[in-house]
């Protein structure tokens, strides 16, 4: 009998009394044999553990799906935790949690009797889910008109971003990049280049990226500054972003000091924003960055929301690691150099520092 068969039969208890005695004798006298038996037992035990573990994993997945579904879990979390604790202040806004804001708000409002009026409003993430068809047709057009240019696979998500200092750090929305496998940025002056996630604040929906290749930011001179104070209602504001492959300008005014569901970390603005605008800068007339485009209410086309820069600075200032914080804020401009320029000139100066973000997700 081969050792493995012997082991199996011994464990099963099917050896004759004589064979069993012989087996046990060999176990105690033959070290190599004993070791082989030990290995065999370890292997079978690991096999069993592996199966048990997989069963348990399956069971937990099933429980999760059955009991917590896709959205319900988050809703309850924000209703219980965020709303109770923060009195309806800020909502976390990771990509998948966009619905939450809506639904939990609806749930809260329902107690106040606004349920029916409000229930169709949704805050919509403005990342652009790139349709394969469109993206590939872009690719074809690019291929025809610029035959020497590389054609890349279409990204899963696209949005906007802007530089905060001359070291290659840029700000965008966390919901854009939170499940990214790789992130690229590009604009008319910067070739598509790799960026990595440096800091994230899911509650504010804020992400800081760094362009990996330091040559890209070598000659950067950002013209705008991050405004620390809040801006007043009625101020003229504008944004630049990438709802398409080309940068698009949008203007309007600051309509409220709070955002969706009285969220005081956001402004409401009267700029029609579109998918792809997420993560873009919101600027005042003087070229100060006052916010980051966050989303809009679906159904209300000319209403957008932007995260206030003072909230962003607060969040960055709260980073535990000193060196990271210094790197992020150390280089930022204190003053905008765009104050006296007319709008079209301002935009020319700003454009090199506003980016189209391309996100490739894990499968």
């Amino acid at each position, binding site marked *: 009998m081969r050792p493995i068969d012997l082991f199996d039969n011994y464990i099963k208890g099917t050896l004759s009394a004589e064979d069993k005695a012989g087996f046990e004798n060999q176990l105690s006298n033959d070290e190599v044999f004993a070791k082989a038996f030990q290995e065999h037992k370890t292997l079978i035990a*690991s*096999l069993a553990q*592996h*199966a048990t573990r997989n069963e348990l994993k399956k069971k*937990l997945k099933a429980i999760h799906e059955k009991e917590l579904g896709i959205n319900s879990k988050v809703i309850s979390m924000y209703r219980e935790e965020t709303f109770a604790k923060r009195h309806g202040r800020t909502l976390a806004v*990771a990509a998948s949690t966009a619905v939450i804001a809506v639904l939990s708000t609806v749930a809260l409002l329902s107690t106040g009797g606004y349920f029916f009026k409000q229930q169709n409003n949704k805050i919509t993430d403005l990342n652009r889910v790139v349709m394969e068809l469109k993206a590939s047709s872009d690719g074809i057009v690019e291929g025809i008109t610029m035959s020497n240019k590389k054609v890349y696979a279409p990204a899963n998500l696209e949005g906007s971003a802007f530089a905060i200092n001359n070291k290659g750090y840029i700000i965008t929305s966390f919901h854009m990049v939170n499940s990214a496998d790789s992130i690229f940025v590009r604009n008319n002056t910067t070739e598509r280049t790799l960026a990595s996630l*440096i800091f994230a604040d899911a509650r504010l929906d804020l992400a800081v990226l760094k362009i990996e290749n330091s040559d890209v930011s070598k000659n950067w001179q950002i013209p705008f500054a991050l405004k620390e104070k809040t801006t007043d209602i009625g101020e003229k504001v504008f944004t630049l972003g990438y709802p398409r492959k080309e940068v698009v300008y949008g203007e309007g005014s600051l309509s409220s000091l709070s955002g969706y569901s009285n969220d005081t970390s956001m402004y409401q603005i009267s700029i029609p924003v579109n998918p792809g605008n997420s993560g873009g800068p919101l600027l005042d007339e003087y070229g100060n960055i006052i916010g980051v485009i966050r989303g809009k209410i679906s159904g209300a086309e000319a209403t957008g929301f932007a995260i206030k820069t003072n909230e962003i600075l607060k969040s960055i200032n709260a980073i*535990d690691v000193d060196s990271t914080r210094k790197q992020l804020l150390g280089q930022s401009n204190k003053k905008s150099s765009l104050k006296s320029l007319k709008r079209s000139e301002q935009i020319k100066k700003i454009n090199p520092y506003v980016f189209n973000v391309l996100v490739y997700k894990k499968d």
Partner: protein
Amino acid sequence: MSKSKLQFTDDQFIDGLRNGNNEILSALYKKYYNIVLKFIVNNSGTEEAAQDIYQETVIVLYENAQKPQFSLNCQLQTYIYSVAKRLWLKQLKKNGKTFLFKEDDENELADVTGDVAEHSEKEKNLDKMNKSLLELGEPCATLIKDYYLSKLNMDEIAEKFGYTNADNAKNQKYKCLQRLKKYFFETHSIEQEK
């Protein structure tokens, strides 16, 4: 017991896990998910990551509860939170992103270092087995499981896998197990030490 709104004590939860009570497992799962979700999302994690970490946390608890000597020396909620926190910190470390981690003192912490370390060891071993089984491929993987776990006999295996007789099946099983052994103790053990 009425079916609606069952409230279990910590001890009942542990006993339930011990006895493989699915209703209790389900109730426990529901009860503590939000705590872990909130923690992960507040620490740069996605909902998906929260789900993974939470399930791993429940596994740590579940497997510990199977040990006769296991007893909680803190509240169940504290235990779960502490395990989840350790697991998440470990993952951030692995990805070199500890700077994304915000300390908070809101929740009490229990010392679960031992339990988590033990879990990690086991996890390594299971990962090794997983890779070995994948490399082993079919029909070997199923054949081995059928024999050792489902306890099918050689006649049943011969019929299921289309071997002409039990002896042929036995030979196949022998070859399959030899290969599995090689992958498990050699190929993937060496990889892990790198």
